């Protein structure tokens, strides 16, 4: 009696598994031959065991691959979000300065937040100025000491630097996480 080949049995097992072949339609030899039936069942269980023993790739796999294919920060959405974020940051700075100045209008009895902040900054500025004046003659010739324009420029510089740092270390990471 000639047995079915492994490939034939495998093919039968796959067809039964897919529902393409009814068990009743299996070859007579397979049904009556204990060895072939054993091989048939072994293959069926082996396939099932292998299918349920898949090693899933981590969820980050797709992103990791795509980041290598499309360099980070190059996607259109990232560009839009990044540009939009900068515009919003600039608008926030301007709004903050304008708002602060509006609370510090001439004639107001209470000092506004800008004046308070400027007061603090002025103290640091004066300390630095005195220190530098003691060590160099360059700043001593300035006639614009403590001027409002200078204060605003210094404040704007610090605010922009702070926002830049926030954008670099927080904003961009957040954008990448969302993408």
């Amino acid at each position: 009696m000639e047995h079915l080949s492994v490939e034939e049995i495998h093919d039968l097992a796959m067809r039964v598994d897919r529902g393409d072949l009814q068990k009743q339609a299996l070859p007579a030899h397979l049904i009556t031959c204990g060895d072939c039936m054993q091989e048939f069942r072994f293959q069926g269980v082996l396939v099932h065991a292998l299918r349920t023993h898949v090693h899933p790739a981590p969820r980050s796999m797709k992103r990791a691959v795509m980041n290598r294919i499309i360099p980070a920060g190059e996607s259109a959405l990232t560009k839009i979000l990044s540009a939009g974020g900068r515009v919003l940051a600039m608008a926030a700075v301007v709004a903050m300065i304008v708002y602060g100045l509006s609370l510090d209008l001439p004639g107001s009895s209470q000092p506004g937040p800008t004046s308070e902040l400027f007061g603090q900054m002025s103290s640091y500025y004066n300390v630095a100025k005195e220190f530098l004046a003691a060590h160099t003659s360059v700043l001593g010739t300035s006639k614009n000491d403590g001027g409002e324009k200078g204060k605003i420029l210094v404040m704007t510089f610090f605010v922009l630097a702070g926002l830049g740092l926030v954008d670099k270390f927080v904003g961009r990471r957040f954008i990448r996480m969302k993408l």
Partner: protein
Amino acid sequence: MPLSDQDILQRVLQGDQKAFGEIVDRHKDRAMTLAMRILKNKQDAEEAVQDSFVRAYQALGRFEWRSSFSTWLYRIVFNVCSTALTRRGVPLAPMDDDTQEDRHLELRDPAAAPDIDLESSEVKKAIREEIDRLPAAYATVLTLFFLQEMSYAEIVEVTGSPLGTVKAQLFRGRTMLREALAARLGRQETWGLSGLAASVV
């Protein structure tokens, strides 16, 4: 109706880079499984699969569709993993002879065909664990044949091994698996005529 691999890859070739993400989603688990069977280390397997997808993307323009995309991808995974094994100084395959002989009749060796209830959960668990213990070459061929449902010809294409070697590895892997199950589970359980055997008689 979901797009075929070929449809998606055509979009990628036309400049839609992000469409490749769909390909990664479709094939990453099976690619990872194949890599795990070969490398038997999760971190190495993840790196190998990631590298394989990137290489596939970079070589996509040269893919000629003489085989299915998955066969081509698994060949890349296989090669990347083989290279990783070589770097470790571990040979992928025990040397197998290239006999074209159909080993089917040898499967009837009682020592290799234990009388055990293959459908019990204990046996299924044992099969999974023993598969992980098989030499990489055997586990690879078994996975490609039984899980990926590849033909001998496709496995030859993936592994680059001659047909005789593939058949021998499939035979030996299966035999080792059966022997390991016999040793582990004993032969006290019997087939009887339960399950499928009973339903078809």
